[in-house]
């Protein structure tokens, strides 16, 4: 294969990566894939790839000189590769292309389960959260959380989930009237009477592949109201931390549950 055709193929592969990254950034879909810190970096990377690919495409027919001498018998080639350029092009473009077509910007229920949707927080799992959220007093909680018109303290789901692994927090938060927001799904564990649902959000550190589900249990005490499966809801009620089958659980005894707007992104940006 001639060097010019190889350059053109490589440029096309690089430009496809640039196009996909820049499209996801420009369309706003990037918020489903990357944590905020990484979005600008991805955009800069997309622009850099576009410059690299376009530069090499536009100069593909020009002669170049590396400006240094090579030893006798050494190949004077800065572009040679062990892999066929066509194979490189296929390997770089097909997975990206198919993924861009297949993605629905969210995980299926099976993968959510794998990412902790039906797991409860354990003390050993939360050392960093413990340092980030030292146990407050009830007064501090009331001073730092706004109240709804009907008197519920607004909590993020992360705080409620984290409290399951912290005995001090349970003492302070047990019995509190709280409101929280998240996605509602069927409760698959220990739900013989069918009165329970599960509320969760995804917590992303860097990208969605490393995200974890942060769930609590919703106890309605009767048949739960009809709410869209995996839809966003606001729920209010009394927080409890019962021990069930030897495991501490975060259970919200629900008094009010209503559908909510979809937040701008999954990350914990609002309560």
């Amino acid at each position, binding site marked *: 294969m001639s060097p010019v055709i190889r350059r053109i193929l*490589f440029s096309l*592969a*690089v430009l496809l*990566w640039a196009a*996909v*990254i820049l499209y*996801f950034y420009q369309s706003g879909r*990037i918020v*489903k*894939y*990357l944590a905020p*810190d*990484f979005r600008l*970096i*991805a955009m*800069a*990377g*997309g622009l850099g790839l576009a410059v*690299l690919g376009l*530069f*090499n495409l536009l*100069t593909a027919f020009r002669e170049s*000189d*590396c*400006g*240094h*001498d*090579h*030893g006798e018998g050494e190949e004077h080639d*800065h*572009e040679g*590769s*062990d*892999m066929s350029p066509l*194979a*490189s092009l296929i*390997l*770089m473009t097909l*997975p*990206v292309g198919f*993924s*861009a*077509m*297949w*993605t*629905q910007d*969210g*995980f*299926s229920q099976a*993968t959510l389960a*794998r990412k902790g949707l039906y797991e409860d927080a354990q003390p*050993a799992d939360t050392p*960093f959260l413990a340092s980030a959220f030292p146990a407050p007093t009830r007064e501090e909680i009331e001073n730092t959380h706004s109240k709804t018109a009907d008197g519920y303290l607004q909590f993020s789901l992360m705080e409620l989930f984290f409290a399951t692994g912290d005995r001090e927090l349970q003492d302070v938060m047990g019995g509190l009237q709280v409101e929280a927001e998240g996605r509602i799904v069927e409760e698959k564990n220990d739900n013989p009477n069918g009165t329970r649902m599960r509320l969760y959000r995804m917590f992303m*550190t*860097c*990208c*969605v*592949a*490393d995200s*974890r589900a942060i769930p609590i249990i919703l106890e309605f005490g009767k048949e739960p109201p009809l709410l869209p499966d995996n839809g966003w809801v606001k729920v209010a009620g009394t927080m409890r931390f019962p021990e069930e089958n030897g495991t501490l659980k975060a259970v919200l005894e629900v008094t009010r549950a209503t559908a909510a707007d979809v937040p701008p992104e999954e990350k914990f940006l609002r309560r």
Partner: protein
Amino acid sequence: MNADAQQDFALAFLSILFEGAPFILLGTLISGFIDIYLPAGTMDRFLPKNRNLAILVSGLLGAVFPVCECAVVPVIRRLVGKGLPLGCALAYMLAAPIVNPITALSTWKAFQGQAPWAMTGGRMLLGYLIAVGVGLIVSRIAMHRVLRKSIADKVEADSAKKEHQHHDHDHSCCGHDHSHEKANDSRLIAAMRSAQKDFVDVGVYFTIGVAITALFNTGIAPGAIWLDSLAGNPAAAPAALMALAFILSLCSTSDAFIAATLAKFTWSAKLAFLVFGPMLDVKLIFLYQTVLRRKFILVMALSVFAFIWVVAVAWETWFGKVVLP
């Protein structure tokens, strides 16, 4: 693959790709410009005359000449051919993909919220110690037992030739730039082409690695559950992740983004993944064979694997649960 699996794979695949691609681009732009603008003899001039000291310094050269493991092998091949001491070359080859600012930055960034300074520092330190250790050992072994026969013969022939031509300044091997009159834009084009070629070379392996990771991450790959089941075993987990690093063949500038997603594994297992992967993986086995003897590669691979495993298990046993998650 059913529709749910396609959706899960695509989401995980794209997210890791978006996260890692800018760092690969940065690394390959630097390596492309080094390739064209840096005269080949520059590294020799940085090294002290004392053999052991030179190896210690070689392990740090990645901080000045940052290249990933894919780019470092061709560089080493050329430098060894031009007479760089073998111990220095191997110390640089093993350390440069880890002990360099791009890898440090990507590791620190990827492990935000997961003790980033400890992971970055631990990775640099362990990588450096292993690389220098291998360099010191290799410097005491005959060249023919380490290098491929053709390269060892060439090095010896060149060495004899240099002795003979001691003061005859031959431009073909001094590494200086003798083409100052050549147009700058022509070199820029060459540098951009070299960078693009490096990006594609690394991008191909990165794509394969990300695809395999996405399959494991979402539970699609056979063995994903089995891999998870090893996560809590302090002896099996580092070995499993080193084996995974070997198979995934990720670039050191972006592998931290994948390690950070292995949420069920311990800190020391992830450290083993991040130190072993840039030193030995499937693609490197092929690349190393362009310079080193197969038997030496096998012995080096097993020794490095065993050493990192011992360090990881010892850390997990004595410190892991106390200091880090």
